[in-house]
């Protein structure tokens, strides 16, 4: 019987002890701490009266690079957003919508009603059901007074907000970015140099470097992708990029040496403009007046005309103008920034005012007597520069070798009514046949 008494006393002692162990690690409950965090971030975001700059990366794995954005959060629940590129509104224009910090597993910044700038990146289309795969809800990963690191909830891309401490006018910033990008669009390739060693070469596609390099240990060719945004004087990588134990993120453009130089302390790295061996001429070198020699109606007698090559879309296309022989504004010439070459591909050049039909420039294989009827490339003729021949700079147009068994050596101008062929554009001032074209520079 005594045993029972002692056992009971023991139980009583334990029971009493158990009551004392209810010590919380945190002084406040989880819900109150979450609420406090929401309030804290809410105040922090609204505290920057000059707003925040942020680099917004849409798409899975931030694969097309990022865009500069400017956001101004107000404590009344409104946020004004503008972006460096044209969205649903022109570049740089701001639009206001509502923002809030909401409680989920952690604090989440939400742009919960429609903003024509922000949600341009997330809205789907009937023709493209995934749209641009941008985020509109962001988990707060880290926050300090001047930097807030966010992460998209749906697609996981980073979105880092930087307090506009210098009170920079966003319009000025955006136009600086646009000018810089415009200037840099001339260069299609760069090479990556780390501590004096050339690591590899990268083409630039959509604000992303894909650096091809050889892994010395594995003896394998590898590629590493690095996405970035433009700043007014350089680039900012998506996240700190580590290669061979060197971590880098900020690069500034050095115009004299044509390279992006890393500005992070103690880092010796740069991306310099790279011209492959077969690179021909730079975009600007094609601009100007040229004498065009070609075979027209006659295959034995040369015809000549003075053509002018002018900018259409900088570093991408030109218009070749010649009122002497073209009854329409001109034909499009494409520029390949990676190879420094120009091509004339199949395209609709203009509407013929007399008939209302489309004037289509068609690649023509005179030997086989075949023309390519497609309304767009890739079939066409490509220019070869007389690099090694000396003398005046001239470019000779030949087969671009994408049309299977046919080898175009010239162009034929045709008329089209929609997709229906009407026939050769016989009313063109200079005729409709242009074969064996060579252009020779007269003046820049």
């Amino acid at each position, binding site marked *: *019987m005594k045993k029972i008494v002692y056992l*009971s006393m023991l139980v009583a002692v334990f029971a009493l002890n158990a009551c004392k162990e209810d010590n919380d690690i945190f002084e406040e409950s989880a819900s109150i701490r979450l609420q406090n965090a929401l309030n804290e971030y809410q105040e922090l975001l609204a505290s920057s009266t000059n707003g925040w700059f942020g680099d917004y990366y849409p798409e899975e794995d931030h694969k097309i690079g990022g865009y500069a954005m400017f956001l101004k959060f107000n404590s009344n629940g409104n946020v004004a957003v503008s972006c460096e590129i044209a969205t649903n509104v022109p570049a740089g224009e701001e639009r206001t919508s509502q923002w809030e910090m909401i409680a989920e597993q952690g604090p989440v910044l939400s742009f919960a009603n*429609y903003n024509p700038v922000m*949600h341009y990146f997330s809205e789907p289309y009937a023709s493209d*059901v995934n749209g641009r795969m941008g985020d509109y809800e962001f988990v707060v990963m880290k926050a300090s007074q001047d930097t807030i690191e966010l992460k998209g909830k*749906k697609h996981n891309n980073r979105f880092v907000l930087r307090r506009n401490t210098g009170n920079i006018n966003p319009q000025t910033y955006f136009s600086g970015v646009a000018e810089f990008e415009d200037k840099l669009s001339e260069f299609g390739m760069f090479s990556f140099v780390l501590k004096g060693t050339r690591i590899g070469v990268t083409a630039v596609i959509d604000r992303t470097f894909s650096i091809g390099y050889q892994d010395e240990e594995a003896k394998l060719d590898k590629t590493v992708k690095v996405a970035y945004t433009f700043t007014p004087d350089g680039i900012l990588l998506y996240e700190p990029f580590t290669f061979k134990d060197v971590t880098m993120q900020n690069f500034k453009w050095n115009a004299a040496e044509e390279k992006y130089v890393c500005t992070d302390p103690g880092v010796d790295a740069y991306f310099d403009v790279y011209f492959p061996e077969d690179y021909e001429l730079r975009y600007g070198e094609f601009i100007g007046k040229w004498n065009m020699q070609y075979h027209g109606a006659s295959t034995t007698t040369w015809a000549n005309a003075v053509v002018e090559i002018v900018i259409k879309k900088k570093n991408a296309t030109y218009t070749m103008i010649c009122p002497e022989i073209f009854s329409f504004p001109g034909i499009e010439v494409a520029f390949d920034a990676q190879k420094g070459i120009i091509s004339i591909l199949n395209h609709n050049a203009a509407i013929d005012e007399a008939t209302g039909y489309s004037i289509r420039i068609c690649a023509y294989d005179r030997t086989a007597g075949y023309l390519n009827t497609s309304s767009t490339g890739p079939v066409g003729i490509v220019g070869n520069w007389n690099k090694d021949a000396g003398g005046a700079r001239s470019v000779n147009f030949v087969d671009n070798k994408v049309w299977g068994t046919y080898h175009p050596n010239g162009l034929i101008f045709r008329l089209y009514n929609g997709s229906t062929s009407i026939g050769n554009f016989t009313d063109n001032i200079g005729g409709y046949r242009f074969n064996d074209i060579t252009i020779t520079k007269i003046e820049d």
Partner: protein
Amino acid sequence: MKKTGIYLMLLLVSLALWSCNEDEPGSESIFKDSTAPQTDFDRWLLSNYTYPYNIMFKYKMQDIESNKDFELAPATADKSVAMAKLLKYIWLETYEEVRGIDFVRTYSPKVIHLIGSGGYNSNNSVILGTAEGGMKITLYDVNDLNPENVDLVRFQSYMKTIFHEFSHILHQNKNYPLDFGELTKNDYVQADWSESTETLALAYTKGFVSRYARKEPNEDFVEMISIYVVYGQQNWDAILREAAKDENGALVTVGESGADIINRKLEIVKQYLRDSWSIDLNELRRVFEIRLASIDQLDLTHL
């Protein structure tokens, strides 16, 4: 004596255990989940949706409430206001007028979630609305609504979804007679309803008012109600005319056609609504139509 001691001990033990029980709830609610200040629209929603109808009107899109398969954009504040006013006027107040506010309060879905963009499936088809278990209705493509000039045909598609889903809630609470499903029990095809061979014309000839109605009796039942109410008598007559023919377009003997089956189904639907819910289906449609025809009188651009 000894026994008394033991009992005392036991008493102490049990008291000691009791004393632990002082875990009272804190005074702070754990349901404050946003820092956004209340707007006029928020207050309007409280007094026009939450308090009268017990409905949470979520015009701010929330990822965790939305379909993860879709890329989406939220609704604008302006379009949300217009949608809130339209839904109240044409859906909630129609039922309220016919059946009273307590009915609406009890049976309406508890959450309405607005999405600005369409919900595009990977095959490029688009959905306008979905409902989950009678609890939540999600309406898509709200940004396409023009508050100045509502596209009635388009708006009818929203209402079709809503009347469809709301009718599910009704039959889930009070079942309809089994006779209904017996009428065409061999022609329900489950998920195959969307096969290209299961055409609308075929559905009509078999006594269904839509292709989707062939999925199963419950869908058939609510398709009857939603199409009857939302698209009106003219449309219904047109369906009956088509349903009176066979697959080759020849008239079928009266009494044996799809139209006859649809008429029998409609009788069951009407009787069920009358007996179980005191709802006159024709009256419901009359009220709905009057309201739909007068939406140009609504001020959808102001609260």
